[in-house]
């Protein structure tokens, strides 16, 4: 039994945590949240210089060729610092899509630039409120021309290339759309977490090439989302841990009725519940990254389990962290809202709780039938 990260991986965690506490303090998150920018471009450059954007991209395409274990560690630290970066869009989703589905030429063109961080990529899936229905997408590809509307798209305004999920007469396709061209309109969309920019994208006869020059089976796209779900789960776990730490620290320092509020059972039990949910989320995230890194058949179940646990832990910790702070937690001045925004934002991307609960039960039914 070896269900733990290696010593080298633990070292990477320490290094990443140290780096982000120095270069991404909460003041950096606040600057993006308060300002007009969609991201912290200078921080992205530093992160790319550290090689983080190259983690799982193969060496043949300018990457480091490391495993998902390393990427999961970085994802957790990204979440812990609530980094205002397009790491999830560019690394867990778009780079993965190009790596899995792209032609040799497409991989050679984009992966080195994504690995080096000089390009940012994102994925455009959502068209309207409600669950994403891959068989009902209205964005259409005909020939080399793409038409449709996607909203919201995370990090679109800073992306050099967008993977647009669309349909053609042949079926489901992932379309590569470089953003520096006529026929792509990108309008900012206000979300509750302005530390991560979001946009509406309109394609009006936009020039595109289909990723891999082929249609995708729905299952193929779902496997991509399974992998992303594991990495999102690690990032959400980081958010959850920060919220718990902040709540614990405040409960120790804030006094009411002559004693630290952390000595009241009402607060203790709230924080113990956070710890329990975070522990379940962490252990399930281990299971998720094991299945992802080892290419296990259990990935659909492991990913859904990790994702549901992380959604529950992160939103609970973020909500109850504010509650623990009382009125000060509701101010703009305190940092509590960073985690509240980010936990919910990450929980809405790539399918929310009910979607993954549903997939979990389907995967569990399949796995128990096979056993």
């Amino acid at each position: 039994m070896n269900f733990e990260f290696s010593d080298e991986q633990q070292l990477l965690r320490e290094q990443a945590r140290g780096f982000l506490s120095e270069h991404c303090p909460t003041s950096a998150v606040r600057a993006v949240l308060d300002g007009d920018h969609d991201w912290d471009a200078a921080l992205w450059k530093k992160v790319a210089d550290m090689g983080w954007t190259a983690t799982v991209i193969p060496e043949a395409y300018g990457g480091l060729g490391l495993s998902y274990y390393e990427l999961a560690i970085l994802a957790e630290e990204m979440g812990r610092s609530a980094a205002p970066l397009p790491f999830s869009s560019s690394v867990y989703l778009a780079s993965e899509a190009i790596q899995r589905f792209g032609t040799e030429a497409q991989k050679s063109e984009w992966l080195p630039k994504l690995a080096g961080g000089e390009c940012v990529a994102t994925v455009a899936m959502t068209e309207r409120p409600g669950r994403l229905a891959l068989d009902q997408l209205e964005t259409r590809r005909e020939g080399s021309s793409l038409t449709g509307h996607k909203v919201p798209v995370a990090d679109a305004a800073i992306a050099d290339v967008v993977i647009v999920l669309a349909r053609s007469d042949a079926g489901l396709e992932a379309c590569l759309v470089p953003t520096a061209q006529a026929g792509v309109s990108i309008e900012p969309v206000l979300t509750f977490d302005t530390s991560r920019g979001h946009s509406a994208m309109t394609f009006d006869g936009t020039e595109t090439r289909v990723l891999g020059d082929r249609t995708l089976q729905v299952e193929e796209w779902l496997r991509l989302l399974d992998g992303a779900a594991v990495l999102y789960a690690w990032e959400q776990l980081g958010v959850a841990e920060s919220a718990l730490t902040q709540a614990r620290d405040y409960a120790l320092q804030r006094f009411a009725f002559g004693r630290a509020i952390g000595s009241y059972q009402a607060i203790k039990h709230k924080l113990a519940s956070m710890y329990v949910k975070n522990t379940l989320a962490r252990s399930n995230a281990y299971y998720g990254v094991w299945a992802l890194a080892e290419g296990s058949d259990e990935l659909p179940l492991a990913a859904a389990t990790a994702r549901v646990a992380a959604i529950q832990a992160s939103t609970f910790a973020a909500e109850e962290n504010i509650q623990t702070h009382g009125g000060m937690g509701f101010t703009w001045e305190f940092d509590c809202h960073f985690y509240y925004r980010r936990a919910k934002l990450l929980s809405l991307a790539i399918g929310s709780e009910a979607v993954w609960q549903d997939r979990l039960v389907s995967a569990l039914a399949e796995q128990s039938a096979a056993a």
Partner: protein
Amino acid sequence: MDFNDTPEQARFREEASTWLAENAPTDDAFRALPPLEQAKLWQKRKYDAGWACIGWAPEFGGRGASAIEEVIWRQEESKYELPATFFLIGQGMIAPTLMAWASDEDKARFLPPLASGEEVWCQLFSEPAGGSDLAALRTRAERDGDSWVINGQKIWTSGAHFSDYGVIVVRTDPTVPKHKGLSYFYVDMKAPGVEIKPIKQLTGESDFNEVYFTDVRVADSQRLGEVGQGWQVSLTTLMNERAAIGGGFGQMDAVLAMSVAQELEIDGRPALEDSAVRAKIANWYVQESGLKYTGYRSLTALSRGELPGPENSIGKLVGAPKMQAMASYLMDLLGASGAIADEALAAKAGIIQRAYMGAPGLRIAGGTDEIMANIIAERVLGLPQEPRLDKGIPFNEVPTG
């Protein structure tokens, strides 16, 4: 990460599974014996072959196995349908206390028969006035020459009725603050003045007892630790409690819930297709899976010769309420039929109803949900204790309800 044994662990597993295959009793004659006799027979067979309490030192009847080898042994043994164990409290909680606090003579006298199952032990801690606040206990022992005279009442004592010995914590000095006036003894459960009355639980079963002590005389040599050191000795026993309790959530898992929901209909469709039902099942699975892989993380630490982290403390706090919630919801799905407990008529032979009736006990035994949450908050998160109104006050001056 991988779930495989090291070569050394694999060799040990092979040795264990070979011995079990050759020695685990499966015959009908064995099954016909009363449960306690089955358990004693099996325990003795293991002991004679060196497979009882394998983590203990050889001189006490063990084989000095590592913590991970103990886990491997339990995994292999659990593949067989073996008699329920009656020795968990004695071997899991009391033996470590004897090892830490008893005289060499007593260790040599009591540990081997505890390992072999020839002598069964119980733990006499809780009292009507002292449960979560254990140190508020009132059973007193008064010195009389070379012996002590015990008077009082213990409660929730598992297995007192089939135990040969028990460990007991009593008040030897009521004039000092509560933790300072306690002492710890072992007692002969057959001694004159010990009276055992079974408690009928809300399930109708009787696993626990009240134990009354009337002028029960114990020798001073039966004391573990100094006079007034009973609390520290008790902590040794309690630290090992988590290892002994817990687990036991049986067949009530998400797969069972799925199977119930598959067999029922909501508006003409399988209940398993209902999104509310699916959300519940998913949440239970998240908890089960989270506990399972938390266990794997702890095993990894053990496997490396390290101590598992505090994450282990969530098991009972998650598992017991989950069992209750799941049983309750599955009965809801069954509708009015959910009330049927008759094994011949009930869905899943009544295990759901039994789980619901048993769950309140699991949420209380070995530390209530509330005490477990306090432990996590204080020992893991480092939050301060609540102020205690009895702190520093002589026990006989503390207000009582």
